[in-house]
């Protein structure tokens, strides 16, 4: 089982590197999906199957489909890929790379020196779906409710922005018949 953890973790890291370096946006997104799936396997191996399933359903299955949808809509051609490649100059990535290297060093330090015996990585029993629900709606109830209020506000906002004053189909067919009337007249 430990081998599956390292293998999927390696896949996640490699795929994420590919996300950063790809010039084509859709290819980058595909690698991001692979990375999310690999992270889901990591969760599963660590004993959190519920979180793993949600990772696939919500992130890989829903959020990323939206991303792909928007990128497809933009229909970036080869010129965008060329421009993207120009942006990937050392001057652009040196700064973020140093900061990420610091985080990586920290991670390695924690993994190697602070935890004796990395065999039991989580060090606790599997967290089943029931426990997730109980903690979310027990001690964290206020947080969940506040987050849902925030989402509701976003929903109302989107609804308002998408609202047409002359509503939907009726008015469109009306304007169409108007135009036809003008053409005839």
């Amino acid at each position: 089982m430990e081998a599956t953890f390292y293998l999927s973790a390696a896949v996640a890291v490699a795929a994420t590197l590919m996300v950063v370096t790809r010039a084509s946006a859709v290819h980058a997104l595909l690698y991001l999906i692979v990375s999310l799936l690999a992270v889901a396997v990591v969760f599963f191996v660590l004993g959190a199957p519920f979180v793993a399933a949600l990772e696939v359903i919500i992130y890989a299955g829903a959020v990323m489909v939206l991303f792909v949808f928007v990128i497809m809509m933009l229909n970036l051609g080869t010129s965008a890929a060329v421009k993207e490649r120009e942006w990937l100059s050392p001057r652009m990535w040196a700064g973020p790379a140093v900061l990420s290297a610091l985080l990586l060093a920290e991670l390695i330090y924690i993994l190697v020196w602070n935890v004796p015996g990395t065999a039991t990585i989580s060090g606790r029993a599997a967290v089943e779906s029931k426990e997730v629900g109980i903690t979310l709606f027990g001690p964290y109830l206020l947080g969940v409710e506040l987050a849902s209020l925030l989402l509701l506000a976003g929903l109302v906002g989107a609804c308002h922005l998408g609202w047409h004053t002359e509503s939907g189909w009726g008015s469109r067919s009306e304007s169409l018949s108007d135009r036809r009337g003008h053409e005839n007249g």
Partner: protein
Amino acid sequence: MNEWTGIWANLILILAAVFAFSAMLSWIERRLLGLWQDRYGPNRVGPFGVLQIVADSIKLLTKEDWIPPFADRAVFVLAPAIVAVATLLAFAVVPLAPGIGVVDLNIGLLFFLAMSSLGVYSVVLGGWASNNKYSLLGGFRAAAQMLSYEVFMGLALMGVVMLAGSFNLRDIVAAQENLWFCIPQVLGLATFAVAGIAEARRLPFDLPESENELVAGFHTEYSSMKFGLFFIGEYVGITLISAMIVTLFFGGWLGPLLPPLVWFLLKTFIVIACFVLLRAALPRLRYDQLMAYGWKVMLPLTLVNLLITGAVVLSMA
């Protein structure tokens, strides 16, 4: 050692059976359509035309496998594989009968939802990689349709999960010992069936390929076995949705007299026949109708179902 051989036998037999049945399904569908529309359907190759699928697959395999020069090669090749892999993987959690099934997963239902949501990529990426207006439009429609219908597909099943108290499909079947969930969860069944048809991209909801307006939609540029994979993927998808409807709402393998496996296959076949009948009976929806129907009718219905089920479960406890 004995345990391992059992697992492998299960795995290989189920894979072969699913593939064979899904392939046969194209013949079954055409014959049933013929029956209901007062005509013959394919009846030339072999007895009753049973071997039609053999002829079809030889044709598909020997056709030129053409990748358009303007397509995104890697994604174009990858796309048809995703749908076949995702739907076949989802079959791993379907319990056919006691002791028959590939894996007994505690999050079986979630695994099914996860795999069905990954299947979307096949259509979307196929449409995008073809680099063709009609394919791209098909891909757009697929993405929007799947997103809208996936939301209440998951919600529709939560009533079943509440009643059974588990995501494990075997536990869900066991919980239907006294009463099949199609009676207390009739709203859940209705909404899940609609979402299932949309996920399988079957006729009232086949907008991603709608051949009268988009040539062939997302698979316009596909030929040979790459098209064959989309084709098989669709039929495996229908079989999967039918098997899930039977498992979740019609008591899976439960039934008197006949052996469990026979009951399961019989029920699944009846549900599949209903799917085919829908295709024969219903016209295609308009795109805005599809979206409005999903968000304004089906989603509120599933929420009402959740509320009622929650109230009943609370009052019973």
